[in-house]
């Protein structure tokens, strides 16, 4: 190198002009390079700012609670709903999101919310409850009755992109002015006059830092801070500083102050929740106070603004003293800058930090339900759209039902383990709760552990169903009223079936006994295997399979005779679909977890309308429901009424598989259907039958939920007749044991039973049946 230079010096004079012409292109190239570089930064700045600025996670909402006179609702359930919506208990509500409660009377101001079908305005209402029902809903101002008020929905989860960015976007006009003023006062009081950088501030900060020999002050404008958050890493190098300054100038060149401010409000880093970073004031408000920004007070604004300087150093949850000092400092600056009065500041300072104790959970509260939602969404959206487009997903989840279900499942399995001397954690459970007519999924438990997001047994555990399948066999038979009625006597005597390949099949009853001639409704109610097997073979296995398909079981099924006793593996969700069709009177409704999906701006993207398909004869469905009500009253499900009120109408079926590997119960009331499975993940025997396991979970759940409405509505084609169960013949008079059974018109027996021949008309109804069907 040195030699070369010496050689060059010798020639230098001669080459002087040549050298000038040598530097000129380099300078020109440098200029070009700089121009290109700035153009590149400019392109970056504009692209980031104009294009999609943030990837927004999808928000998943529970069903909104609709308040109206007549709705079954306990004061505690309403309290719980309002608590999970973070309504603030106050003595006298003045702002949306505030509530006061005086025993059974609630006074609340609801929040405005935009739904898929329009806006629900904020309302100042009083709700009176009594005896587990909403008695009245009134407008406080006018005193008039309000017939229907919809609360905002509980946010139950979010679908994040892989890098776990989360945000609640806010518009500048929706941000309360005190917050904006505080931010500008503290972070960049020259914001509205500078051009992106404030050299004086930088000098001042530099001087302060040199004196303190560390970084104590940042001279960055809000614009620079935004650029830093937006485009650059957090390293402190000179290049980065220069880039930051250039980009800040460019940003100011292209955009209005308010646009920059709005972006800043949504971008600034304000905390960390596990691996989820908290960006923007909108999300921070929920993260720290569990309330929307619009509901915060001045001291809370000051705290958030104070966090900008160092979200972890001033973290109010871990360092409340530092956070308080910082907040009070911000309040002082606000006084200095004339944002608030001295009085206001001292009042604000006297308040506690008011940060919510429980952190807003990053993990989703109801993973099994959200898993189902996500799967339904994947049919219509790409994965990246689900996680980044800020979709607002309105689901059918009823948080009250979900909580009760989780609680019932875990508690009951614990009791069962203790009573059966099993080590804790041996049993697993899963299940689904839906509405009957609309087929909306209210709750999903994928495990006994609430919040467990692994294997979703409700959707993915395919287990033998046992007797839970039997209603399909009886339905197939009852669709032929010329051959079968509820009173038809079935033979529950020994049966050996020889298949065409010469193999034989001899089904047994659960109690290892045969019960002789049994009326059809009791064969189902008592879950007799042999009578059912014979019935299944009579109507044909293929017909039973066709019925199962009509009920909504899509998968192909093998036509083995043992199918009619439940030798088939289904998930709790599939069993739920099957029972939904029966419970709704033969109308299949695909189970839905989503009502509607809106784009981030509120534009409706997709609705999931209620669809029905008449797939089963409604009269036959009615008869099966009747038999399943007998199962609850006198059959395999009768232990339900040891706990549940006798006026609760329940139709349901137990299921137990070989060696007690699986315990099932599928049951429905007038308004809800629930299917519960209990067993072991390793498929070993749990020692539980349907009625000693899953049924108890179901019973615990409905003891909490209650039931409303009657189970069966009148059906045109059905008539009731009094029958002697021993013979299946008419018993209009006499026959102590006579029961009233429904028949498809014209299918009722004509002959009188022997006991009815010379008996006297009955004095009074002899049993609960009469009551039941009045």
């Amino acid at each position, binding site marked *: 190198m040195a030699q070369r230079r010496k050689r060059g010096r010798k020639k230098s004079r001669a080459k002087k002009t040549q050298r000038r012409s040598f530097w000129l292109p380099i300078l020109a190239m440098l200029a070009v390079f700089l121009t290109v570089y700035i153009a590149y930064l400019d392109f970056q700045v504009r692209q980031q700012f104009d294009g999609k600025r943030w990837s927004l996670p999808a928000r998943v909402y529970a069903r909104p609670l*609709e308040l*109206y*006179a*007549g*709705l079954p609702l306990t004061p505690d359930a309403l309290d719980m709903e309002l608590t999970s919506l973070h309504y603030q208990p106050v003595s006298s509500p003045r702002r949306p999101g505030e509530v006061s409660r005086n025993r059974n009377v609630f006074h609340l101001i609801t929040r405005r919310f935009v739904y*898929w*079908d*329009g*806006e*629900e*305005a904020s309302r100042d209402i009083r709700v009176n409850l009594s005896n587990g029902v909403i008695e009245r809903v009134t*407008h406080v101002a*006018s005193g*008039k*009755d*309000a*017939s*229907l*008020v*919809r609360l905002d929905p509980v946010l139950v989860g979010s679908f994040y992109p892989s890098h776990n960015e989360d945000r609640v976007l806010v518009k500048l006009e929706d941000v309360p002015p005190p917050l904006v003023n505080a931010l500008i006062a503290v972070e960049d009081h020259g914001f509205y006059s500078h051009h992106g950088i404030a050299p004086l501030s930088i000098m001042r900060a530099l001087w302060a830092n040199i004196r303190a020999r560390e970084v104590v002050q940042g001279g960055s404008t809000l614009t620079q801070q935004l650029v830093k958050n937006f485009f650059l890493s957090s390293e402190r190098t000179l290049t980065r500083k220069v880039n930051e300054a250039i980009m800040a100038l460019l940003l100011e060149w292209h955009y209005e102050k308010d646009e920059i401010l709005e972006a800043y409000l949504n971008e600034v880093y304000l905390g960390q929740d596990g691996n989820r970073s908290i960006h923007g004031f909108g999300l921070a408000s929920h993260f720290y106070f569990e309330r929307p920004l619009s509901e915060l007070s001045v001291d809370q604004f000051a705290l958030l603004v104070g966090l900008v300087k160092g979200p972890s150093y001033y973290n109010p949850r871990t360092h409340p003293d530092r956070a308080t000092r910082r907040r009070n400092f911000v309040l002082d600056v606000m006084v200095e800058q004339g944002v608030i009065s001295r009085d206001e500041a001292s009042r604000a300072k006297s308040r506690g930090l008011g940060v919510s104790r429980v952190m807003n959970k990053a993990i989703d509260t109801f993973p099994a339900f959200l898993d189902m939602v996500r799967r339904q969404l994947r049919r219509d959206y790409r994965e990246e759209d689900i996680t980044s487009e800020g979709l607002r997903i309105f689901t059918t989840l009823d948080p009250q039902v979900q909580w009760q279900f989780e609680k019932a499942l875990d508690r009951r399995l614990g009791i069962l383990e203790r009573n059966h001397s099993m080590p804790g954690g041996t049993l697993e459970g899963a299940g689904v709760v839906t*509405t*009957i*007519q*609309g087929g*909306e999924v209210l709750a999903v438990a994928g495990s006994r552990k609430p919040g467990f997001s692994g294997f979703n047994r409700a959707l993915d555990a395919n287990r033998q169903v046992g007797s839970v399948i039997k209603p399909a066999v009886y339905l197939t038979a009852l669709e032929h009223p010329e051959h079968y009625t509820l009173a038809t006597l079935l033979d529950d005597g020994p049966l050996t079936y020889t298949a065409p390949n010469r193999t034989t099949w001899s089904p047994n009853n659960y109690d290892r006994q045969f019960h002789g001639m049994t009326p059809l409704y009791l064969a189902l109610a008592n879950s007799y295997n042999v009578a059912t097997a014979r019935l299944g073979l009579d109507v044909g296995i293929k017909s039973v399979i066709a019925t199962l398909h009509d009920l909504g079981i899509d998968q192909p099924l093998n036509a083995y005779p043992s199918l009619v006793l439940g030798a088939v593996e289904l998930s709790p969700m599939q069993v739920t679909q099957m029972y939904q069709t029966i419970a709704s*009177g*033969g*109308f299949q409704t695909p189970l839905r977890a989503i009502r*509607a999906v809106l784009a981030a701006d509120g534009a409706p993207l997709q*609705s999931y*309308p*209620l*669809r*029905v*398909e*008449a797939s089963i004869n*409604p009269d036959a469905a009615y008869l099966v429901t009747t038999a399943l009500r007998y199962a609850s009253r006198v059959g395999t499900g009768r232990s339900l009424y040891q706990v549940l009120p006798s006026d609760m109408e329940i139709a349901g079926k137990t299921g137990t598989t070989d060696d007690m590997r699986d315990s099932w119960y599928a049951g429905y009331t007038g*308004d809800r259907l629930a299917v519960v499975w209990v067993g072991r993940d390793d498929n070993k025997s749990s020692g539980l039958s349907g009625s000693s396991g899953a049924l108890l979970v179901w019973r615990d759940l409905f003891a909490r939920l209650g039931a409303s*409405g009657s189970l069966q*509505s*009148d*059906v*045109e084609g059905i008539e009731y007749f009094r029958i002697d169960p021993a013979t299946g013949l008419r018993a209009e008079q006499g026959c102590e044991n006579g029961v009233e059974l429904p028949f498809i018109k014209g299918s009722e027996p004509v002959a009188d039973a022997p006991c009815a021949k010379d008996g006297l008309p009955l004095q009074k109804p002899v049993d609960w049946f009469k009551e039941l069907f009045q």
Partner: protein
Amino acid sequence: MIPIPYSRIACLALFVIVSGTACTTATYHRTQSPVIDQSAPASERPAARGEVAPPGGYQEPPGVQVYPAPRQQPPAVVALLDHAEQQANNGDLPAAAMTLERAIRIDSRNPVLWHHLASVRLAEGDAIQAEQLAKKSNALAAGNYALQARNWDLIAEARRTRGDASGAQSAEQQKRALQTR
């Protein structure tokens, strides 16, 4: 967008069946939730029922009440029906359907609601769902022959739309059989 004749069908169906008043061009702003005071005109409806000739030349037999008297419609459902009617009036059929679904969530065994949903689906051109929903309405409408007849009328119309003339004819027969009851 939605073809005008369809929305007119829905308008007629909803208006005549629910309230018996003529179709008007009431202005309604979708961004507001339903008026939910009990003083809303919806509560005055029962008096007006059955007084106006329904569409399609179908004549209600005199003296027959469409809706069984004992069945009380909760005020919430009445308000939503009112709202759905206005939405259908404005030609916003998807919104009307959503409102009816909301009402069904509250009163899911009310055959009137299912019937209205069926007529909105028919107006939207979804003849298959219209027929299924009308059947659902019928399954819940035991004893209410007038409503059943309307459902069969709707099913006949749905089948005609799909080009199923013989199916439509048998639905007409069902309707006539009910009218003589």
